[in-house]
């Protein structure tokens, strides 16, 4: 379910925004209502499997067990709930930041590598898609546990042991690995469209290599950065399995708490309220992130 949503997201996000008016739009004037017919099946599916359940959840939040704002009052008056919410957002931010730091040079390397190396790098990015989310998360359990491969390797060079599993660090490591493709792919898509002659041109105009990179390449890669960051951040907010298996129960994220409320305590209203709060805050964050990235893009390019 999570993955389905994500792959839908990324193919849209990976395309750099085109400014040219689409010829299809002008053609549709003559073509009548045909495009509308073409997206009708998707719209019906979206309404049946996304909007309807969403409305149901929201309805529950305001009506179960009694109509009113009771569930929301409960949510905001419990410090534990607010701590969970905060932890969810900081974890998602960390995952986004670490993914970006790892993916930016990786995607850049893909654009400058020869075709053979590029194919290999692309395969490594896509590799996670060929195994199930569960399998990969359990693999991380084995790698990260106190007597796991990572601690054994660190021990061999005289470091550690570190407690990685059942910590926020472990959750972030696992989530970064699972979400990195959604950062690398839009970055690569945008970077491979950047004209390779722009950097020599900047050099000839008197820019040191680092200056040329920061003033020309980075601003041009920003659409990829914002697409990747949005996708990874939003996906990280809703992650359930990975934090459940790699994290500690005391550091649970909001998706785990929703699960507890609904499945464990059968409090459908409270679960719904948490979902509505998460959705609302996510939308606000998307708006803020989009605005600030656009500003940053404009500032860097000055």
């Amino acid at each position, binding site marked *: 379910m999570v993955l389905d949503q994500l792959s839908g997201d990324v193919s849209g996000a990976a395309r750099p925004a085109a400014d040219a008016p689409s010829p299809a739009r002008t053609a549709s004037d003559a073509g009548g209502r045909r495009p509308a017919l073409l997206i009708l099946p998707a719209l019906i599916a979206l309404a049946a499997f996304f909007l309807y359940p969403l409305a149901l959840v929201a309805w529950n939040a305001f009506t179960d067990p009694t109509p009113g704002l009771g569930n929301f009052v409960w949510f905001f008056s419990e410090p534990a709930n607010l701590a969970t919410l905060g932890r969810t957002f900081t974890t998602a931010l960390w995952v986004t930041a670490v993914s970006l730091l790892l993916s930016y040079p990786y995607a850049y390397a893909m654009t400058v590598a020869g075709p053979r190396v590029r194919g290999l790098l692309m395969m490594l990015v896509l590799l996670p898609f060929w195994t199930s989310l569960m399998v990969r998360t359990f693999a991380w359990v084995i790698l990260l546990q106190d007597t796991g491969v990572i601690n054994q390797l660190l021990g061999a060079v005289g470091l550690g042991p570190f407690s990685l599993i059942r910590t926020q660090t472990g959750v972030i490591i696992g989530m970064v690995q699972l979400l990195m493709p959604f950062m690398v792919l839009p970055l690569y898509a945008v970077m491979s469209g950047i*004209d390779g002659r722009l950097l020599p041109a900047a*050099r000839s105009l008197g820019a040191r290599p680092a200056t040329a990179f920061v003033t020309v390449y980075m601003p041009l890669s920003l659409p990829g950065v914002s697409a990747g960051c949005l996708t990874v951040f939003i996906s990280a907010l809703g992650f359930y399995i990975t934090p459940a298996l790699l994290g500690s129960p005391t550091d649970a994220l909001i998706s785990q708490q929703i699960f507890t409320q609904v499945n464990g305590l059968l409090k459908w209203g409270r679960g719904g309220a948490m979902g509505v709060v998460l959705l609302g805050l996510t939308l606000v964050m998307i708006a803020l992130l989009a605005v600030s990235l656009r500003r940053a893009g404009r500032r860097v*390019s000055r």
Partner: protein
Amino acid sequence: MSSSAISPDARPAPAPDAGSGRNDLAGRGARIELTGLSRRYGDFAAVDDISLVVEPGEFMTLLGPSGSGKTTTLNIIAGFVSPTAGSLKVDGAAIESTPAHKRDMGVVFQHYALFPHLTVAENIAYPLKRRGIGKARRAELIRAALDTVHLGEYGHRYPRELSGGQQQRVAVARAIVYGPRVLLMDEPLGALDKKLRDWLQLEIKRIHAELGTTFVYVTHDQEEALVLSDRIAVFNHGRIEQVGAASELYERPATLFVAKFLGESTVLRGEATRTGDGSAVGVCARAIHTPGRIEGSRAAIVVRPERLAVRPRDHRPEPGWNALPATVTGEIYLGSSRKLELALPDGSPALVREQAGMLSDTREGDEVTLTWRAGDSVLLPDDPDVEAVFT
């Protein structure tokens, strides 16, 4: 500047200094000296031991077929490619180890390489900012550069909002705004249509005259080279075949390759023997005389089409003239002149150009005598490779 009146894609404002011929960006050109320069990729020499001096303020064109090493040479001068042998001096100082951003040269790329996220004015400001030039001075220089390329009103536009010719002129403005001593251009008009190219050639020539900067210009279009250059260096297989003014290359080509690459000509091949005042070459069982002398005996004689004349078959050549029988195989009327295509007895082609008003009454199929002065025969060593390039 009347040249701007024929601009097909813009309504340029007149340059402020058009009357006086002075330009705010004018400076002094540098002297560039390439000595024994090579660039090898594995076993392959993209540039093979070339030596060339470009004088201060000169317009030097690197002309040659595709793959002959022009771009590589330009990239070596710009600092994007390092030579594997030889030395490169600018105003007497060796600069092989100077990085590109410290060479203070302007470069105009074939596809302009404008920064798409910056407006025209910001593109032109880019090199000024890298040099720490203050805002007020920057504005003046940007204005002067935009006026120089007749794009005064376009500063706030983004490159994608400009036509190809306008983008090309922005690239020129960006490369000259900081007063570089050298301007390097790699086929800057290659992506444009013929009409626009003709106009921009004149614009580039005018900018060169206004600035006094040393220009090194790469093209594979011989006509463009003739229009623009003070001197032309003809490249072939990574080597320079000849350097000289256009008239020199045309009248006195040093190799068969240069003769064939620049302009049209008739080539006569045969065995050369020395005579008292030059050489005689056996062509179609006749001796063709030329004042030239070469090493070896496999020779080619090159004659330009306007030097050849067509006479009746029974014409007797005067002393000091060569003659060959020929058959007219075709005729092309060009308005100001007429081209006649002929075949020699051995089947090889010949080409004659007659000026309007001096046309002979020759027609296709006529049996004629082809005559020309012995002094108009350029004697060169034969080069069998050349046919491969041109046929």
